[in-house]
C-alpha cells in the first residue's frame, strides 16, 4: 500500500480526491490556529464596512432631501448645495467646566448663539421661507448634520482600525454598531418628518397642551412659547407650549418662570407633560406619572424650572408618554397620538386630587411642536 492510499483510506475514500480533502482540512486547521483572530478581525472590519456604506447612503439621502426642500420652499437664487455642506460641518464648542459655577448660563448663551446663527444661515439659504418653514428647515439641517457626524465618526474608527489592526478599536465599534445604526435610522426618519413639517413623537407634550388651549386666547411668551389661560376643573390653569406649527422646542423653563413671577408665586402646582424614552418591552404610548421637572435637552431649562419652583416651594408633577428613540423623532404614531387623550385625563385627575378649586395651576407640554398648532 502506498502512502496516498493510506491517507486516502483514513478519510474513507481513495484516489486523489481523498488526498485533496486531507490537505484542505490540515491546512484549515493550521490557518485557524495561527490566524483565527486575524480572520475574525477581518470579518468585523467587513461588517463595519457594510454599515459604513449604509450610513453614507443614509446621509447622502438626508442631505439630498434637505437641499431639495430648501430649493422647493426657499426658492434661492443660487444653488444652496455648497452652503448646506458647510452647515454640516459646524461645530459647537461647549463651555469649560473646570469651575462649574454659572455654567448653565454660559451654556445657554452658547446654545442661543448657535440657534441664531443656524436660523440666519437658513434664512440666507432659503430667502422665501416663512418663520414656520425656517424652523422646519433648521431642524432638517440639524438632522442632516447629525447623520454626517455619525458617518464621519464611524469612518474614523473604521480607517483607524484598518490602519492599526487593533482588536480593541475594531471590536468596540463593531459591538456598538447595532445601536448606532438604530440612531442613524431614527435621525433619517426625523429628517423626513422635519422636511415635510409632520408632527413627531416628541410632540406628544405640545399636543396635549394644544388640545387644552385650543379656542382660547393665546399670548406669546419668552422664548418661542405660547401661554393660554384655561379654566379647567374649576381651577385657573396656565397652559404653556412651544409655538407651532414650526419645529421648535422653545424655552419652557423661561416661560414657566415668567408665569410664576407674574402670579407672585401663587401657583398651587405645576404639571409637566413630556415624551420619555421607553424601555424595550414597554408599549409605545403608555402614560406614566411621577414628580420632578419632565424635560430633556441640554439641561438649562430643567435647571431654571427647578430654581424657580424652589424659590416658592411649588410642587411639581410629571406626566410622561413613553416611546422609543425611533418613535420620538419619526412621524407621530397613532398609539402616541391616542395617548394624548389619556394624558389629558391624568392631568385633570392630578388637578382634582392635588389642588383646591380656585387655585392656579401651570400645565406645560414639553417637546418639539413641529406640525402641532394651537
Amino acid at each position, binding site marked *: 500500500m502506498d502512502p496516498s492510499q493510506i491517507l486516502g483510506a483514513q478519510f474513507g475514500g481513495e484516489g486523489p480526491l481523498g488526498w485533496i480533502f486531507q490537505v484542505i482540512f490540515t491546512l484549515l486547521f493550521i490557518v485557524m490556529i495561527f490566524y483565527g483572530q486575524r480572520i475574525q478581525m477581518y470579518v468585523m472590519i467587513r461588517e463595519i464596512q457594510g454599515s459604513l456604506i449604509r450610513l453614507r447612503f443614509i446621509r447622502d439621502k438626508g442631505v439630498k432631501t434637505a437641499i431639495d426642500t430648501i430649493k422647493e420652499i426657499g426658492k434661492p437664487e443660487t444653488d444652496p448645495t455648497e452652503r448646506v455642506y458647510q452647515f454640516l460641518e459646524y461645530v459647537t464648542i461647549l463651555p469649560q467646566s473646570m469651575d462649574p459655577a454659572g455654567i448653565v448660563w454660559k451654556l445657554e448663551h452658547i446654545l442661543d448663539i448657535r440657534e441664531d446663527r443656524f436660523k440666519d444661515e437658513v434664512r440666507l439659504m432659503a430667502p422665501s421661507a416663512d418663520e414656520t418653514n425656517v424652523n422646519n428647515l433648521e431642524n432638517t439641517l440639524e438632522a442632516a448634520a447629525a447623520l454626517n457626524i455619525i458617518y464621519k465618526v464611524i469612518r474614523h474608527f473604521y480607517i483607524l482600525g484598518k490602519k492599526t489592526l487593533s482588536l480593541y478599536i475594531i471590536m468596540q465599534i463593531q459591538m456598538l454598531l447595532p445601536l448606532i445604526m438604530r440612531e442613524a435610522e431614527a435621525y433619517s426618519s426625523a429628517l423626513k418628518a422635519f422636511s415635510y413639517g409632520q408632527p413627531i413623537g416628541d410632540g406628544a407634550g405640545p399636543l396635549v397642551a394644544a388640545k387644552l388651549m385650543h379656542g382660547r386666547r393665546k399670548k406669546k411668551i419668552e422664548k418661542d412659547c405660547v401661554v393660554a389661560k384655561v379654566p379647567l376643573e374649576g381651577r385657573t390653569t396656565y397652559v404653556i407650549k412651544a409655538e407651532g406649527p414650526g419645529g421648535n422646542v422653545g424655552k419652557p423653563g423661561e416661560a414657566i418662570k415668567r408665569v410664576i413671577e407674574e402670579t407672585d408665586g401663587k401657583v398651587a402646582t405645576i404639571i409637566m407633560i413630556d415624551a420619555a424614552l421607553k424601555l424595550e418591552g414597554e408599549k409605545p404610548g403608555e402614560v406614566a406619572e411621577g414628580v420632578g421637572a419632565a424635560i430633556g435637552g441640554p439641561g438649562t431649562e430643567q435647571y431654571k424650572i427647578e430654581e424657580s419652583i424652589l424659590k416658592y416651594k411649588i410642587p411639581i408633577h410629571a406626566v410622561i408618554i413613553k416611546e422609543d428613540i425611533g418613535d420620538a423623532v419619526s412621524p407621530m404614531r*397613532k398609539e402616541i397620538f391616542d395617548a394624548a387623550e389619556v394624558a389629558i385625563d391624568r392631568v385633570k385627575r392630578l388637578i382634582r386630587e392635588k389642588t383646591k378649586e380656585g387655585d392656579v395651576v401651570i400645565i406645560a407640554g414639553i417637546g418639539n411642536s413641529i406640525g*402641532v398648532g394651537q
Partner: protein
Amino acid sequence: MDEEEKPVRRLSSIVLIIIVVVLALSASALYQAIDLYLKQDVASGYYLLIGFLGLAFSIYMLLQTRRRMRRFALKTTPVTTTITCQKCDFKNLREFERGDFILKEAGSCTKCDGTMLISAIYRELKEKVKEERF
C-alpha cells in the same frame, strides 16, 4: 414617497473564487459519493455529507451577500391627516400634505356649513402582531 433604491450588486472577487472552488469541490465530492455508493463502499456517506456541506456553505455565502444588498432600501410608512367638522363630526381622511398641522382650519364642511379642522396627523404601523412572552 417610496424609496426603493437599486444598488449595484458587488461581490468581491476573492469571495467569488472561494464560492466557485467550494462549489467545484462539493460537486466532485457528490460525484465521488455516487460512484462509491454504486461500488457499495461505506465511505460514500462521508462524501455525501461533505458535498452537501460545501453546497450549503456556498449557497449561504451567496444569500448573505444578497441579503446585505436588500437591506439598503429605506422604508417609509404613509402619514394620514384626519379632518373633522366642528359641527357635525363629519370625518375626512387623506394622505398628509405639506402645510398640514394639527388644529389647522381646513375650509368648510361639505355636509353642513361648519368649519373643518385638522384633528389628527399620525402614522399607523401595520405591525405583525406577534404575541410577546414578556
